[in-house]
């Protein structure tokens, strides 16, 4: 057992008769480097750790956390969690989980190699990225930020009901944000590459994406308002799927906040949509051997050929809904309790790449980025309205760049009006994979 498990075990061993205790103990080490104008702007290297304790007593739950592994702070958290439980409402479905018969898949999410790279090498990677972006196009006036970052994290979850899981993963990325200027006009664009260690990063792709995305918007103006076909770039699809994840939460269904409540086995999306959540896919950023409550991860079919097949559940929501957990407990860190969430949504790809999809669109717009998702998308009502920028599509070809417009529809309609999914799956660092998506009947508001 490693140190974190020993700490967790000490906590759960303090359970009194009739009391259930879960200890989540986490440690991570992060490096973060930002360069600007061929010099380091900031460099940070730090470790942090903490513990989150859940206590359930007489079907009442309490929680407390501490941002340290200091024994006195842990004692404080345990006594606060106990005290907090005494104020909660009794709920017969509350209770920690116990092991089921799924076996954990052996996923390789940790690279020993990451620790072997000196900080200087990481700095060089960021400096090199900035230089690459600047050299790609003379209209790139500056790179607002070029970053390198990595994190190695270890965690353990133990309960006195038999759950016992540990997690270990590394993650590394580079990202650049380019500023293109032409005739007094400024446009920006970003590019990045992610992996589990330095050798998995692709600086060429990060640099060319940043340059291409900024420069191709030069000359952009507002499009005329109209209903048209929209082609979402993979990154935009990722954002859309991350919102849809909320509708597919079993907890939201139970609490009357899901558009899909009561629609099992119905056609909720176009026939080209087949969606699974599969955190056992090691390519996914959200892959993990166990969920946040310690259940072995598994793949869950959510929508098949447009038909709603299932929802995501953690221990509590599964028990309340009378189904089995889908091992979909997620947590934001040691300072929050687990809740239901997707980790690796994956849309079954189609046959065409993005250029081929473009040739099939007569009048539309390629949306390369969206803004205002928090303020403009309501996953409960389904209202969808976001800022967008991209390129017009005319008679099967990319046309002039457009910006400062919105695209609007509803989540329900968007799902029904998907006419094609691309084959360009991109494992973006999010809870969903990106892929090009063609959606009809979207209101574009510009001039």
């Amino acid at each position: 057992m490693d140190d974190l498990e020993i700490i967790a075990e000490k906590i759960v061993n303090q359970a009194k008769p009739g009391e259930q205790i879960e200890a989540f103990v986490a440690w991570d080490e992060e490096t973060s480097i930002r360069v600007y104008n061929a010099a380091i702007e900031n460099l940070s290297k730090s470790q942090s750790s903490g513990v989150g304790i859940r206590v359930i007593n007489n079907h009442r739950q309490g929680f407390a956390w501490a941002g340290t592994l200091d024994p006195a702070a842990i004692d404080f958290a345990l006594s606060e969690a106990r005290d907090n439980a005494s104020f909660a409402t009794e709920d017969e479905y509350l209770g920690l989980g116990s092991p089921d018969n799924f076996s954990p898949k052996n996923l390789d999410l940790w690279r020993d190699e990451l620790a072997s790279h000196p900080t200087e090498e990481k700095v060089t990677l960021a400096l090199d990225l900035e230089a690459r972006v600047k050299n790609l196009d003379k209209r790139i006036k500056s790179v607002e930020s070029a970053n390198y970052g990595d994190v190695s994290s270890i965690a353990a979850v133990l309960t006195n009901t038999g759950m016992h899981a540990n997690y270990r993963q590394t993650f590394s990325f580079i990202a650049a944000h380019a500023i293109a200027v032409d005739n007094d006009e400024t446009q920006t664009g970003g590019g990045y590459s992610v992996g589990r260690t330095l050798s998995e990063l692709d600086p060429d792709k990060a640099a060319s994406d940043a340059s291409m995305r900024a420069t191709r918007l030069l000359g952009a103006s507002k499009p005329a308002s109209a209903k048209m076909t929209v082609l979402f770039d993979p990154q935009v699809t990722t954002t859309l799927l991350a919102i849809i994840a909320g509708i597919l939460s079993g907890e939201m269904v139970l609490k009357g906040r899901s558009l899909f409540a009561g629609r099992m086995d119905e056609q909720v999306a176009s026939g080209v949509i087949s969606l699974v959540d599969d955190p056992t896919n090691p390519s996914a950023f959200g892959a993990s051997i166990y969920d946040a409550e310690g259940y072995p991860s598994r793949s869950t079919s959510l929508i098949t050929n447009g038909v709603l097949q299932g929802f995501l559940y953690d221990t509590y929501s599964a028990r309340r809904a009378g189904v089995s957990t889908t091992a979909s407990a997620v947590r934001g860190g040691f300072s929050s309790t687990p809740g239901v969430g997707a980790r690796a949504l994956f849309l079954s790809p189609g046959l065409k790449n993005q250029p081929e999809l473009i040739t099939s669109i007569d009048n539309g717009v390629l949306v390369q980025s969206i803004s205002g998702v928090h303020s403009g998308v309501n996953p409960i009502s389904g209202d969808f309205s976001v800022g967008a920028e991209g390129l017009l599509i005319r008679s099967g070809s990319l046309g002039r760049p457009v910006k400062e417009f919105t695209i609007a529809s509803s989540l329900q309609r968007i799902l029904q009006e998907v006419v094609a999914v691309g084959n360009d799956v991109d494992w973006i660092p999010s809870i969903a994979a990106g892929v090009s998506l063609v959606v009809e009947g979207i209101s574009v508001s510009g001039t």
Partner: protein
Amino acid sequence: MISPEVIHKVLASAVSRGGEFAEIFIEDKQSSSASFDDGKVEELSSGISKGAGIRVVVGDTTGFAHTADLSEPGLLAAAEAARSVALSADSNARPIVLDSAVSYRLPDEILIPSSIGKREKIELLEHMNQVARSSSGSIKQVSAGFGDSYRKILVANTDGIFATDEQVRTRISVSVVAFGDTGMQTGYETAAFTMGYEMFNEIDIEELAKLASERAVRKLSARPAPSGTLPVVLKGGSGGILFHEACGHGLEADHIIKDSSVYKGKIGELVASPLITLVDDGTVGKQWGSAQIDDEGKPSQRNVLIKDGVLTDYMWDGLRARKSNRSSSGNGRRQSYQHLPMVRMTNTYLLEGDEKPETIIENTKHGVYVARLGGGQVNTATGDFVFGMTEAYLIENGEITEPLRDANLIGNGPEVLKNIDAVADDFSITPGTCGKDGQSVPVGCGQATVRITGVTIGGTANG
């Protein structure tokens, strides 16, 4: 928290390999929250976090490290990590003189969170749940949340600053779901202040619950928002998000220094309608973005950014001020000891004008009245920004008529600021959370009712 001798030693170590500036920021924060959802007290949570962030500035480079180990060896280890960016071994050790401590204490009237029983806090939530549900039969779900924090900070740096402050913040919110023939709709209200539990002597939680419910119920009969450009009247209060996004972020000195703001080089120029005087003010009352000092130890101040439409100044933190040879404007803030400070807004607001809000509406023939905004986002380099309406109505022939479904509005900062043709006298401030570069800080946004002559509304109905 930590003795001045140890602080001195840590700062000396931080600059021992060179560097013109070093700082230690110590934070000790206790927070608690309670949530009521689905008819139940769902969760009470308590947390503690304590640690130090140390930074060393060498030329254009900042080295940073943080630690939860506040022992002398722990702090010295963090200082060593932070100074790793300083490559020269020569110590140009200049003496560090820490000013006699400037300590800010909590005002006497503050009721600190731990002095109030948990039961009492839960009762507030239960009450809001009850009020929200009983206000309409269409309300099918209610969640309510309470949160408070008690944060003690110490900032010391090689420029001699040695300051401590205590900050207490309290917030409450309610979120409802209404159900009808047209599906589900939501309503949300919140109150948040840099105050303790005495905040509940000043706010009306029943009112919050009713407002949230009414908003959701009204939207059940809402029609889709128009698609296209129309005049927009923004009600006083949450409309301050417009200014936060349209120019606030663009006036942060870090964006200016990096050429990533449309407002660069515009000091002294007319950047907005002459009706616009915009202020960022960390000292205003007990608003959500207020504090006695910023997270670099600089006392908060009131900064006029735009006066009668003319750009007068940007917002500055210590690092950017140093580069530009001026003093900080008290806008150096950070989410926690684990983060580097950067230029952030506090409470950003538009000074009120002298028109009556009713007159502005009456004088608008056809447009949209936005009673509540939900949030927004801006690209400071291009000035393009969005902000979302969560309660809005059509204006037809000078009268507020039908409710509209939620949508975003999109515009370009400098253009929208010039297109404001009316400012009323009904000023108020609303709390919000501002995200930048992965860090969240509490802010206030304020304005009186204003009219924009034309802005693009991102709905689905033909305008």
